[in-house]
Protein backbone atom coordinates (compact mmCIF):
# COMPACT_ATOMS: atom_id res chain seq x y z
CA UNK A 1 0.00 0.00 0.00
CA UNK A 2 1.17 3.53 -0.65
CA UNK A 3 2.42 5.57 2.30
CA UNK A 4 -0.76 7.18 3.59
CA UNK A 5 1.13 9.94 5.40
CA UNK A 6 2.27 11.37 2.07
CA UNK A 7 -1.29 12.22 1.10
CA UNK A 8 -2.63 15.71 1.42
CA UNK A 9 -5.61 16.29 3.72
CA UNK A 10 -8.04 16.50 0.83
CA UNK A 11 -6.55 13.46 -0.94
CA UNK A 12 -6.95 11.49 2.30
CA UNK A 13 -10.53 12.75 2.65
CA UNK A 14 -11.34 11.57 -0.86
CA UNK A 15 -9.59 8.23 -0.23
CA UNK A 16 -11.70 7.64 2.87
CA UNK A 17 -14.87 8.43 0.97
CA UNK A 18 -13.85 6.04 -1.82
CA UNK A 19 -13.07 3.40 0.84
CA UNK A 20 -9.53 2.97 -0.52
CA UNK A 21 -8.41 2.76 3.13
CA UNK A 22 -9.98 3.22 6.54
CA UNK A 23 -9.64 6.03 9.08
CA UNK A 24 -8.00 3.50 11.40
CA UNK A 25 -5.37 2.62 8.77
CA UNK A 26 -4.78 6.28 8.04
CA UNK A 27 -4.40 7.05 11.75
CA UNK A 28 -2.10 4.07 12.37
CA UNK A 29 0.17 5.20 9.56
CA UNK A 30 0.45 8.63 11.15
CA UNK A 31 1.03 7.27 14.65
CA UNK A 32 3.93 5.20 13.28
CA UNK A 33 5.31 8.23 11.48
CA UNK A 34 5.12 10.32 14.67
CA UNK A 35 6.92 7.62 16.69
CA UNK A 36 9.78 7.51 14.21
CA UNK A 37 10.18 11.30 14.21
CA UNK A 38 10.61 11.97 17.93
CA UNK A 39 14.04 13.45 17.23
CA UNK A 40 12.31 16.39 15.52
CA UNK A 41 10.55 17.18 18.84
CA UNK A 42 7.44 18.42 17.01
CA UNK A 43 5.02 16.77 19.43
CA UNK A 44 5.12 17.52 23.15
CA UNK A 45 2.39 14.98 23.84
CA UNK A 46 1.31 12.02 21.70
CA UNK A 47 -2.24 10.74 22.13
CA UNK A 48 -2.30 7.56 20.00
CA UNK A 49 -5.04 5.77 21.99
CA UNK A 50 -7.28 8.80 21.84
CA UNK A 51 -6.61 9.00 18.09
CA UNK A 52 -7.46 5.35 17.45
CA UNK A 53 -10.69 5.67 19.41
CA UNK A 54 -11.70 8.68 17.33
CA UNK A 55 -10.66 6.87 14.14
CA UNK A 56 -12.84 3.88 15.00
CA UNK A 57 -15.79 6.20 15.57
CA UNK A 58 -15.05 7.85 12.22
CA UNK A 59 -14.96 4.50 10.44
CA UNK A 60 -18.41 3.74 11.85
CA UNK A 61 -19.70 7.10 10.61
CA UNK A 62 -18.09 6.69 7.20
CA UNK A 63 -19.73 3.26 6.88
CA UNK A 64 -23.13 4.80 7.64
CA UNK A 65 -22.54 7.64 5.19
CA UNK A 66 -22.63 10.22 7.98
CA UNK A 67 -19.12 11.58 7.51
CA UNK A 68 -18.33 15.14 8.61
CA UNK A 69 -16.14 17.43 6.50
CA UNK A 70 -12.98 16.26 8.32
CA UNK A 71 -14.10 12.74 9.14
CA UNK A 72 -11.26 10.43 10.09
CA UNK A 73 -8.47 12.91 9.24
CA UNK A 74 -5.56 12.91 11.73
CA UNK A 75 -4.44 16.37 12.87
CA UNK A 76 -1.93 17.86 15.27
CA UNK A 77 -3.02 20.52 17.76
CA UNK A 78 -0.76 23.35 18.88
CA UNK A 79 -0.29 23.16 22.65
CA UNK A 80 -1.92 26.58 23.00
CA UNK A 81 -5.40 25.12 22.41
CA UNK A 82 -7.11 23.78 25.54
CA UNK A 83 -8.08 20.16 24.97
CA UNK A 84 -10.44 18.62 27.49
CA UNK A 85 -8.77 15.98 29.62
CA UNK A 86 -5.50 16.30 27.64
CA UNK A 87 -2.54 18.20 29.09
CA UNK A 88 -2.20 21.75 27.74
CA UNK A 89 0.86 23.80 28.68
CA UNK A 90 1.52 26.56 26.10
CA UNK A 91 4.99 24.94 26.33
CA UNK A 92 5.64 26.78 29.59
CA UNK A 93 6.84 25.35 32.87
CA UNK A 94 4.38 27.58 34.65
CA UNK A 95 1.38 25.62 33.39
CA UNK A 96 3.07 22.42 34.50
CA UNK A 97 0.65 19.55 34.22
CA UNK A 98 -2.47 21.63 33.50
CA UNK A 99 -5.33 19.44 32.29
CA UNK A 100 -8.22 21.58 31.03
CA UNK A 101 -11.78 20.72 32.02
CA UNK A 102 -12.95 22.26 28.76
CA UNK A 103 -12.24 22.24 25.03
CA UNK A 104 -11.28 25.30 23.00
CA UNK A 105 -14.03 26.31 20.58
CA UNK A 106 -11.78 25.89 17.52
CA UNK A 107 -10.56 22.38 18.41
CA UNK A 108 -14.08 21.43 19.46
CA UNK A 109 -15.32 22.35 15.97
CA UNK A 110 -12.66 20.09 14.44
CA UNK A 111 -13.90 17.13 16.51
CA UNK A 112 -17.50 18.07 15.64
CA UNK A 113 -16.50 17.70 11.99
CA UNK A 114 -14.92 14.28 12.56
CA UNK A 115 -11.19 15.03 12.84
CA UNK A 116 -8.77 12.81 14.79
CA UNK A 117 -6.23 14.21 17.29
CA UNK A 118 -2.72 12.73 17.12
CA UNK A 119 -1.34 14.89 19.93
CA UNK A 120 -0.20 18.31 21.06
CA UNK A 121 2.41 20.25 19.12
CA UNK A 122 5.43 22.18 20.34
CA UNK A 123 5.54 25.98 20.17
CA UNK A 124 7.47 28.90 21.57
CA UNK A 125 6.55 29.47 25.22
CA UNK A 126 3.20 31.30 25.24
CA UNK A 127 3.73 31.73 21.48
CA UNK A 128 6.49 34.28 22.11
CA UNK A 129 9.24 33.63 19.62
CA UNK A 130 10.09 33.27 15.94
CA UNK A 131 12.20 30.11 16.01
CA UNK A 132 10.62 27.74 18.54
CA UNK A 133 13.74 28.15 20.70
CA UNK A 134 11.82 29.40 23.78
CA UNK A 135 9.73 26.26 24.42
CA UNK A 136 10.05 24.61 27.84
CA UNK A 137 10.09 21.31 25.92
CA UNK A 138 13.15 22.25 23.90
CA UNK A 139 13.75 23.19 20.30
CA UNK A 140 11.90 21.83 17.30
CA UNK A 141 13.97 20.65 14.35
CA UNK A 142 13.13 21.77 10.82
CA UNK A 143 12.85 18.68 8.58
CA UNK A 144 14.51 20.73 5.81
CA UNK A 145 18.33 20.77 5.62
CA UNK A 146 20.67 23.07 3.74
CA UNK A 147 22.18 21.32 0.75
CA UNK A 148 25.41 19.62 1.82
CA UNK A 149 24.60 20.11 5.52
CA UNK A 150 26.03 17.85 8.23
CA UNK A 151 22.64 17.30 9.89
CA UNK A 152 21.56 13.72 10.37
CA UNK A 153 20.01 11.23 12.75
CA UNK A 154 22.32 10.61 15.68
CA UNK A 155 22.40 7.81 18.20
CA UNK A 156 19.38 7.13 20.43
CA UNK A 157 16.98 9.38 18.58
CA UNK A 158 19.13 12.50 18.71
CA UNK A 159 20.05 14.92 15.96
CA UNK A 160 23.62 15.40 14.79
CA UNK A 161 24.91 18.64 13.33
CA UNK A 162 23.61 22.20 13.48
CA UNK A 163 20.03 21.92 12.34
CA UNK A 164 17.64 24.63 11.19
CA UNK A 165 14.80 26.13 13.19
CA UNK A 166 11.25 25.62 11.86
CA UNK A 167 10.31 29.20 12.69
CA UNK A 168 7.84 30.13 15.37
CA UNK A 169 5.86 30.31 17.32
CA UNK A 170 3.96 27.49 15.58
CA UNK A 171 7.20 25.58 14.96
CA UNK A 172 5.82 22.19 16.00
CA UNK A 173 2.81 22.64 13.72
CA UNK A 174 4.94 23.58 10.70
CA UNK A 175 7.55 20.87 11.30
CA UNK A 176 4.87 18.19 11.81
CA UNK A 177 3.03 19.10 8.60
CA UNK A 178 6.26 19.28 6.56
CA UNK A 179 7.51 15.94 7.93
CA UNK A 180 4.14 14.19 7.31
CA UNK A 181 3.48 13.73 11.04
CA UNK A 182 -0.15 14.87 10.56
CA UNK A 183 -2.32 15.87 7.61
CA UNK A 184 -2.69 19.43 8.90
CA UNK A 185 -2.30 21.30 12.16
CA UNK A 186 -3.87 24.08 14.13
CA UNK A 187 -1.71 27.10 14.82
CA UNK A 188 -2.04 30.66 16.11
CA UNK A 189 -0.62 33.93 14.82
CA UNK A 190 -0.02 37.09 16.85
CA UNK A 191 2.75 38.69 14.76
CA UNK A 192 3.52 36.05 12.14
CA UNK A 193 3.44 32.78 14.08
CA UNK A 194 1.54 30.88 11.38
CA UNK A 195 2.98 32.46 8.23
CA UNK A 196 6.68 32.61 9.16
CA UNK A 197 6.98 28.91 10.18
CA UNK A 198 4.92 27.92 7.12
CA UNK A 199 7.40 29.83 4.94
CA UNK A 200 10.36 28.17 6.71
CA UNK A 201 9.04 24.66 6.08
CA UNK A 202 7.51 24.79 2.59
CA UNK A 203 3.97 24.54 3.98
CA UNK A 204 0.91 26.76 3.60
CA UNK A 205 -0.52 28.79 6.47
CA UNK A 206 -3.31 31.32 6.82
CA UNK A 207 -3.96 33.82 9.56
CA UNK A 208 -7.62 34.70 9.10
CA UNK A 209 -9.15 38.11 9.75
CA UNK A 210 -9.25 39.00 13.44
CA UNK A 211 -12.61 37.75 14.72
CA UNK A 212 -13.01 34.99 12.12
CA UNK A 213 -12.06 32.23 14.61
CA UNK A 214 -13.02 32.16 18.25
CA UNK A 215 -10.19 32.74 20.72
CA UNK A 216 -12.09 30.99 23.50
CA UNK A 217 -9.99 28.26 25.11
CA UNK A 218 -6.77 29.33 23.40
CA UNK A 219 -4.05 30.39 25.84
CA UNK A 220 -4.01 34.18 25.47
CA UNK A 221 -0.88 36.10 24.45
CA UNK A 222 -1.98 39.48 23.02
CA UNK A 223 -5.75 39.51 22.83
CA UNK A 224 -6.17 42.23 20.20
CA UNK A 225 -3.78 40.42 17.82
CA UNK A 226 -4.13 36.66 18.48
CA UNK A 227 -5.93 34.63 15.84
CA UNK A 228 -6.11 30.90 15.16
CA UNK A 229 -5.59 29.38 11.73
CA UNK A 230 -4.36 26.23 10.01
CA UNK A 231 -1.01 25.10 8.64
CA UNK A 232 -1.44 22.57 5.83
CA UNK A 233 0.33 20.90 2.94
CA UNK A 234 -1.65 22.75 0.28
CA UNK A 235 -3.83 25.81 -0.21
CA UNK A 236 -6.86 23.55 -0.64
CA UNK A 237 -6.11 21.75 2.64
CA UNK A 238 -5.98 25.08 4.48
CA UNK A 239 -9.29 26.12 2.91
CA UNK A 240 -10.96 22.95 4.18
CA UNK A 241 -9.43 23.34 7.65
CA UNK A 242 -10.42 26.99 7.98
CA UNK A 243 -14.05 26.26 7.18
CA UNK A 244 -14.21 24.01 10.23
CA UNK A 245 -12.17 26.29 12.49
CA UNK A 246 -14.02 29.53 11.72
CA UNK A 247 -17.37 30.71 12.97
CA UNK A 248 -19.15 32.82 15.54
CA UNK A 249 -18.83 31.96 19.20
CA UNK A 250 -20.88 33.75 21.85
CA UNK A 251 -18.10 32.94 24.32
CA UNK A 252 -15.70 35.31 22.49
CA UNK A 253 -17.15 38.81 22.18
CA UNK A 254 -14.58 39.66 19.48
CA UNK A 255 -15.66 36.76 17.28
CA UNK A 256 -17.73 37.95 14.35
CA UNK A 257 -21.24 36.77 13.59
CA UNK A 258 -20.89 36.28 9.84
CA UNK A 259 -21.57 33.17 7.78
CA UNK A 260 -18.55 30.96 7.06
CA UNK A 261 -18.11 30.46 3.31
CA UNK A 262 -17.21 27.11 1.76
CA UNK A 263 -13.60 28.21 1.26
CA UNK A 264 -12.73 25.20 -0.88
CA UNK A 265 -14.99 26.58 -3.63
CA UNK A 266 -12.65 29.57 -3.90
CA UNK A 267 -9.70 27.27 -4.70
CA UNK A 268 -9.29 27.16 -8.45
CA UNK A 269 -11.41 30.25 -9.08
CA UNK A 270 -9.93 32.54 -11.73
CA UNK A 271 -7.93 35.58 -10.66
CA UNK A 272 -8.34 37.23 -14.03
CA UNK A 273 -8.83 40.97 -13.72
CA UNK A 274 -7.95 41.03 -10.02
CA UNK A 275 -5.80 43.95 -8.92
CA UNK A 276 -2.74 42.89 -6.93
CA UNK A 277 -0.91 45.59 -5.01
CA UNK A 278 2.88 45.56 -4.70
CA UNK A 279 3.85 47.80 -1.76
CA UNK A 280 7.13 49.62 -2.26
CA UNK A 281 7.74 49.84 1.50
CA UNK A 282 8.34 46.06 1.63
CA UNK A 283 11.45 46.47 -0.54
CA UNK A 284 13.92 46.79 2.32
CA UNK A 285 17.43 48.17 2.17
CA UNK A 286 19.85 45.30 1.98
CA UNK A 287 17.13 42.78 1.17
CA UNK A 288 18.51 39.55 -0.23
CA UNK A 289 18.39 39.33 -4.05
CA UNK A 290 16.83 35.88 -3.64
CA UNK A 291 13.81 37.38 -1.88
CA UNK A 292 13.51 40.07 -4.55
CA UNK A 293 13.69 37.41 -7.28
CA UNK A 294 11.01 35.34 -5.50
CA UNK A 295 8.75 38.37 -5.34
CA UNK A 296 9.26 39.12 -9.04
CA UNK A 297 8.50 35.51 -9.88
CA UNK A 298 5.24 35.73 -7.93
CA UNK A 299 4.35 38.91 -9.81
CA UNK A 300 5.06 37.18 -13.13
CA UNK A 301 2.85 34.19 -12.26
CA UNK A 302 -0.09 36.36 -11.25
CA UNK A 303 0.30 38.49 -14.39
CA UNK A 304 0.30 35.32 -16.48
CA UNK A 305 -2.93 34.27 -14.72
CA UNK A 306 -4.56 37.51 -15.86
CA UNK A 307 -4.22 39.63 -12.73
CA UNK A 308 -3.31 43.27 -12.95
CA UNK A 309 -0.22 44.32 -11.00
CA UNK A 310 -0.39 47.75 -9.36
CA UNK A 311 2.40 49.54 -7.50
CA UNK A 312 1.06 50.80 -4.18
CA UNK A 313 2.30 52.55 -1.07
CA UNK A 314 1.63 51.60 2.56
CA UNK A 315 3.52 54.49 4.14
CA UNK A 316 3.32 53.42 7.80
CA UNK A 317 4.73 49.93 7.25
CA UNK A 318 8.01 50.59 9.04
CA UNK A 319 6.22 51.54 12.23
CA UNK A 320 4.28 48.29 12.52
CA UNK A 321 7.03 46.29 14.22
CA UNK A 322 7.93 48.91 16.84
CA UNK A 323 4.23 49.48 17.59
CA UNK A 324 3.79 45.72 17.87
CA UNK A 325 6.56 45.54 20.47
CA UNK A 326 4.53 47.89 22.64
CA UNK A 327 1.04 46.48 22.09
CA UNK A 328 1.91 42.78 22.28
CA UNK A 329 4.02 42.90 25.49
CA UNK A 330 1.50 45.26 27.12
CA UNK A 331 -1.37 42.86 26.49
CA UNK A 332 0.81 39.87 27.41
CA UNK A 333 1.78 41.38 30.75
CA UNK A 334 -1.91 41.73 31.53
CA UNK A 335 -2.93 38.27 30.23
CA UNK A 336 -0.08 36.49 31.97
CA UNK A 337 -0.86 38.06 35.34
CA UNK A 338 -3.12 35.04 35.92
CA UNK A 339 -0.13 32.72 36.37
CA UNK A 340 0.45 33.28 40.04
CA UNK A 341 0.71 29.81 41.54
CA UNK A 342 -2.81 29.87 42.99
CA UNK A 343 -5.31 28.38 40.57
CA UNK A 344 -3.23 26.10 38.38
CA UNK A 345 0.27 25.14 37.41
CA UNK A 346 3.52 25.68 39.23
CA UNK A 347 3.75 27.08 42.76
CA UNK A 348 7.01 27.92 44.50
CA UNK A 349 6.48 28.63 48.21
CA UNK A 350 7.55 31.98 49.73
CA UNK A 351 7.48 33.64 53.12
CA UNK A 352 4.35 35.57 52.17
CA UNK A 353 1.98 35.70 49.20
CA UNK A 354 4.00 38.31 47.28
CA UNK A 355 7.18 36.29 47.57
CA UNK A 356 5.24 33.22 46.45
CA UNK A 357 4.06 35.09 43.33
CA UNK A 358 7.54 36.40 42.59
CA UNK A 359 9.31 33.08 43.03
CA UNK A 360 6.65 31.15 41.13
CA UNK A 361 6.82 33.50 38.14
CA UNK A 362 10.63 33.68 38.24
CA UNK A 363 10.88 29.92 38.11
CA UNK A 364 7.93 29.23 35.80
CA UNK A 365 8.52 31.71 32.97
CA UNK A 366 11.40 31.50 30.51
CA UNK A 367 13.70 34.41 29.65
CA UNK A 368 11.80 35.71 26.60
CA UNK A 369 8.45 35.65 28.37
CA UNK A 370 9.92 37.50 31.37
CA UNK A 371 11.42 40.14 29.06
CA UNK A 372 8.08 40.76 27.39
CA UNK A 373 6.15 40.89 30.66
CA UNK A 374 8.67 43.43 31.95
CA UNK A 375 8.41 45.59 28.82
CA UNK A 376 4.64 45.38 28.98
CA UNK A 377 4.58 46.26 32.66
CA UNK A 378 6.84 49.25 32.02
CA UNK A 379 4.87 50.68 29.09
CA UNK A 380 1.61 50.36 31.01
CA UNK A 381 2.97 51.78 34.26
CA UNK A 382 1.84 55.11 35.65
CA UNK A 383 3.02 58.02 33.50
CA UNK A 384 3.93 55.93 30.45
CA UNK A 385 0.57 54.61 29.20
CA UNK A 386 -0.14 57.56 26.90
CA UNK A 387 3.41 57.79 25.57
CA UNK A 388 3.61 54.10 24.69
CA UNK A 389 0.42 52.04 24.56
CA UNK A 390 -2.00 54.75 23.49
CA UNK A 391 0.48 56.07 20.92
CA UNK A 392 1.01 52.56 19.53
CA UNK A 393 -2.75 52.03 19.21
CA UNK A 394 -2.96 55.31 17.27
CA UNK A 395 -0.18 54.14 14.97
CA UNK A 396 -2.26 51.00 14.43
CA UNK A 397 -5.09 53.17 13.16
CA UNK A 398 -2.67 54.68 10.63
CA UNK A 399 -1.41 51.25 9.52
CA UNK A 400 -4.98 50.05 9.07
CA UNK A 401 -5.84 53.23 7.16
CA UNK A 402 -2.98 52.57 4.71
CA UNK A 403 -4.65 49.28 3.78
CA UNK A 404 -8.15 50.78 3.69
CA UNK A 405 -6.91 53.40 1.23
CA UNK A 406 -5.50 50.86 -1.23
CA UNK A 407 -8.51 48.58 -0.92
CA UNK A 408 -10.91 51.42 -1.57
CA UNK A 409 -8.82 52.26 -4.64
CA UNK A 410 -9.73 48.83 -5.99
CA UNK A 411 -6.87 46.60 -4.87
CA UNK A 412 -8.08 43.03 -4.21
CA UNK A 413 -5.01 41.72 -2.42
CA UNK A 414 -1.42 42.65 -1.64
CA UNK A 415 1.57 40.47 -2.54
CA UNK A 416 4.76 40.56 -0.44
CA UNK A 417 7.54 38.19 0.61
CA UNK A 418 6.59 36.20 3.73
CA UNK A 419 9.96 36.43 5.48
CA UNK A 420 13.24 38.30 4.95
CA UNK A 421 15.17 35.00 4.61
CA UNK A 422 14.86 31.22 4.56
CA UNK A 423 15.06 29.20 7.79
CA UNK A 424 18.15 29.99 9.87
CA UNK A 425 20.24 27.75 12.09
CA UNK A 426 19.68 27.01 15.73
CA UNK A 427 21.21 29.66 17.99
CA UNK A 428 22.04 31.94 15.06
CA UNK A 429 19.76 34.81 15.96
CA UNK A 430 18.78 36.95 18.92
CA UNK A 431 21.36 35.80 21.44
CA UNK A 432 22.93 39.24 21.82
CA UNK A 433 19.99 41.48 20.95
CA UNK A 434 16.34 40.34 21.14
CA UNK A 435 15.44 42.81 18.35
CA UNK A 436 17.45 40.75 15.83
CA UNK A 437 14.94 37.91 16.27
CA UNK A 438 11.97 40.28 16.19
CA UNK A 439 12.95 41.49 12.69
CA UNK A 440 11.87 38.10 11.31
CA UNK A 441 8.28 39.26 11.52
CA UNK A 442 8.83 42.48 9.60
CA UNK A 443 6.60 41.43 6.66
CA UNK A 444 3.91 39.64 8.67
CA UNK A 445 3.29 41.86 11.66
CA UNK A 446 1.50 44.67 9.77
CA UNK A 447 -1.28 42.19 9.01
CA UNK A 448 -1.94 41.49 12.70
CA UNK A 449 -1.77 45.18 13.55
CA UNK A 450 -4.47 45.90 10.96
CA UNK A 451 -6.45 42.73 11.79
CA UNK A 452 -6.38 41.55 8.15
CA UNK A 453 -6.15 38.03 6.71
CA UNK A 454 -2.74 36.85 5.47
CA UNK A 455 -1.76 33.67 3.62
CA UNK A 456 1.78 32.32 3.28
CA UNK A 457 2.41 30.00 0.35
CA UNK A 458 5.73 28.41 -0.65
CA UNK A 459 6.97 29.77 -3.96
CA UNK A 460 10.68 29.16 -4.43
CA UNK A 461 14.00 28.13 -2.94
CA UNK A 462 17.10 29.92 -1.76
CA UNK A 463 20.61 29.08 -2.98
CA UNK A 464 20.90 26.40 -0.30
CA UNK A 465 17.77 24.59 -1.46
CA UNK A 466 15.51 25.83 1.35
CA UNK A 467 11.90 26.84 0.72
CA UNK A 468 10.86 30.51 0.60
CA UNK A 469 7.32 31.83 0.91
CA UNK A 470 5.21 34.61 -0.49
CA UNK A 471 2.52 36.36 1.51
CA UNK A 472 -0.90 37.50 0.30
CA UNK A 473 -2.78 40.07 2.35
CA UNK A 474 -6.52 40.43 1.83
CA UNK A 475 -9.47 42.63 2.64
CA UNK A 476 -11.18 42.00 5.98
CA UNK A 477 -13.09 38.68 5.85
CA UNK A 478 -12.08 38.04 2.26
CA UNK A 479 -10.05 34.88 2.86
CA UNK A 480 -11.64 33.44 -0.30
CA UNK A 481 -9.65 35.75 -2.58
CA UNK A 482 -6.45 34.69 -0.82
CA UNK A 483 -7.24 31.03 -1.44
CA UNK A 484 -7.91 31.72 -5.13
CA UNK A 485 -4.65 33.63 -5.62
CA UNK A 486 -2.71 31.23 -3.40
CA UNK A 487 -3.79 28.34 -5.57
CA UNK A 488 -2.45 30.11 -8.67
CA UNK A 489 0.94 30.44 -6.99
CA UNK A 490 0.89 26.84 -5.77
CA UNK A 491 0.08 25.54 -9.25
CA UNK A 492 2.87 27.61 -10.78
CA UNK A 493 5.49 26.88 -8.12
CA UNK A 494 4.59 23.28 -7.39
CA UNK A 495 4.59 21.76 -3.93
CA UNK A 496 7.67 21.82 -1.70
CA UNK A 497 8.09 18.46 -0.05
CA UNK A 498 11.03 17.44 2.13
CA UNK A 499 13.33 15.41 -0.14
CA UNK A 500 14.32 12.74 2.38
CA UNK A 501 13.12 11.41 5.75
CA UNK A 502 16.61 11.52 7.18
CA UNK A 503 15.36 11.52 10.79
CA UNK A 504 13.45 8.23 10.62
Amino acid at each position, binding site marked *: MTDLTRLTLTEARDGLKAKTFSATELTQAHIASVEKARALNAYVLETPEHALKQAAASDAKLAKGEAGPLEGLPLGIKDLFATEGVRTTACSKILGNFVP*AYESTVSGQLWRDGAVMLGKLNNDEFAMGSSNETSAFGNVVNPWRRSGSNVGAGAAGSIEGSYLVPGGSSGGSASAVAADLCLAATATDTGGSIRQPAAFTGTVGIKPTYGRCSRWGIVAFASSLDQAGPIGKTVRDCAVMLRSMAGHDPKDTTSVDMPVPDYEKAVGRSVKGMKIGIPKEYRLDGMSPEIEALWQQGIAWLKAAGAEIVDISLPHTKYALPAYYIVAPAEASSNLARYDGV*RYGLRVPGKDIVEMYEKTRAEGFGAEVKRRIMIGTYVLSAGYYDAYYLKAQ*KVRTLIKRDFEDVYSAGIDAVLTPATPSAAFGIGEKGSADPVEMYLNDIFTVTVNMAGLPGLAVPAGRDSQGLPLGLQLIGRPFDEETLFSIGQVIEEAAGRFTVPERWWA
Partner: protein
Amino acid sequence: MSVDLATVKRVAHLARIAVPESELPKLQGELNAILGFVEQLDEVDVTGIEPMTSVTPMAMAQRADVVNDGEIADRIVANAPVSEDDYFMVPKVVE
Protein backbone atom coordinates in the same frame (compact mmCIF):
# COMPACT_ATOMS: atom_id res chain seq x y z
CA MET B 1 13.89 56.58 26.70
CA SER B 2 16.06 54.17 28.62
CA VAL B 3 15.66 52.54 32.00
CA ASP B 4 18.15 52.56 34.87
CA LEU B 5 18.80 49.67 37.24
CA ALA B 6 16.42 51.00 39.89
CA THR B 7 13.61 51.14 37.31
CA VAL B 8 14.31 47.57 36.17
CA LYS B 9 14.06 46.48 39.79
CA ARG B 10 10.82 48.37 40.31
CA VAL B 11 9.28 46.96 37.11
CA ALA B 12 10.29 43.42 38.10
CA HIS B 13 8.51 43.88 41.39
CA LEU B 14 5.42 45.36 39.69
CA ALA B 15 5.43 42.33 37.37
CA ARG B 16 5.86 40.03 40.39
CA ILE B 17 8.96 38.39 38.98
CA ALA B 18 11.91 37.79 41.32
CA VAL B 19 15.11 38.90 39.55
CA PRO B 20 18.45 38.28 41.29
CA GLU B 21 20.67 41.39 41.55
CA SER B 22 23.26 39.71 39.35
CA GLU B 23 20.81 39.43 36.44
CA LEU B 24 19.59 43.03 36.56
CA PRO B 25 22.27 44.57 34.31
CA LYS B 26 21.70 42.01 31.51
CA LEU B 27 17.95 42.55 31.69
CA GLN B 28 18.49 46.30 31.69
CA GLY B 29 20.48 45.99 28.46
CA GLU B 30 17.80 43.89 26.80
CA LEU B 31 14.96 46.16 27.86
CA ASN B 32 16.85 49.20 26.63
CA ALA B 33 17.46 47.52 23.27
CA ILE B 34 13.71 47.02 22.89
CA LEU B 35 12.84 50.52 24.14
CA GLY B 36 15.44 51.95 21.76
CA PHE B 37 13.83 50.06 18.90
CA VAL B 38 10.32 51.35 19.63
CA GLU B 39 11.61 54.93 19.84
CA GLN B 40 11.10 55.13 16.05
CA LEU B 41 7.46 55.85 16.80
CA ASP B 42 8.48 59.34 17.91
CA GLU B 43 8.67 60.22 14.19
CA VAL B 44 4.95 59.56 13.68
CA ASP B 45 2.51 62.42 14.05
CA VAL B 46 -0.65 61.04 15.64
CA THR B 47 -2.37 64.36 16.29
CA GLY B 48 -6.11 63.89 15.95
CA ILE B 49 -5.82 60.13 15.35
CA GLU B 50 -8.10 57.85 17.34
CA PRO B 51 -6.57 54.72 18.85
CA MET B 52 -7.62 51.54 17.02
CA THR B 53 -10.19 49.52 18.91
CA SER B 54 -11.49 46.96 16.41
CA VAL B 55 -11.01 45.68 12.87
CA THR B 56 -14.63 46.02 11.89
CA PRO B 57 -16.90 48.34 13.82
CA MET B 58 -19.22 46.13 15.82
CA ALA B 59 -21.47 46.55 18.81
CA MET B 60 -20.44 44.65 21.89
CA ALA B 61 -22.62 41.55 22.09
CA GLN B 62 -24.75 41.23 25.18
CA ARG B 63 -26.10 38.09 26.73
CA ALA B 64 -29.13 37.63 28.96
CA ASP B 65 -28.35 38.62 32.55
CA VAL B 66 -28.94 35.15 33.96
CA VAL B 67 -26.77 32.50 35.59
CA ASN B 68 -25.66 30.18 32.79
CA ASP B 69 -22.88 28.23 34.43
CA GLY B 70 -21.71 27.09 37.83
CA GLU B 71 -21.90 24.35 40.43
CA ILE B 72 -18.61 22.96 39.17
CA ALA B 73 -16.28 24.06 41.98
CA ASP B 74 -14.53 20.69 42.02
CA ARG B 75 -13.59 21.02 38.35
CA ILE B 76 -12.42 24.58 38.86
CA VAL B 77 -10.00 23.68 41.64
CA ALA B 78 -8.93 20.41 39.98
CA ASN B 79 -5.67 21.95 38.71
CA ALA B 80 -4.86 24.01 41.81
CA PRO B 81 -1.44 23.36 43.37
CA VAL B 82 -3.08 23.47 46.83
CA SER B 83 -6.81 23.31 47.54
CA GLU B 84 -9.07 22.28 50.38
CA ASP B 85 -12.86 21.75 50.37
CA ASP B 86 -13.11 23.36 46.90
CA TYR B 87 -11.17 26.46 48.04
CA PHE B 88 -7.86 27.69 46.64
CA MET B 89 -5.31 27.78 49.46
CA VAL B 90 -2.83 30.68 49.69
CA PRO B 91 -0.36 31.88 52.35
CA LYS B 92 -1.96 34.04 55.04
CA VAL B 93 -2.75 37.50 53.58
CA VAL B 94 -4.52 39.31 56.45
CA GLU B 95 -3.08 39.17 59.98
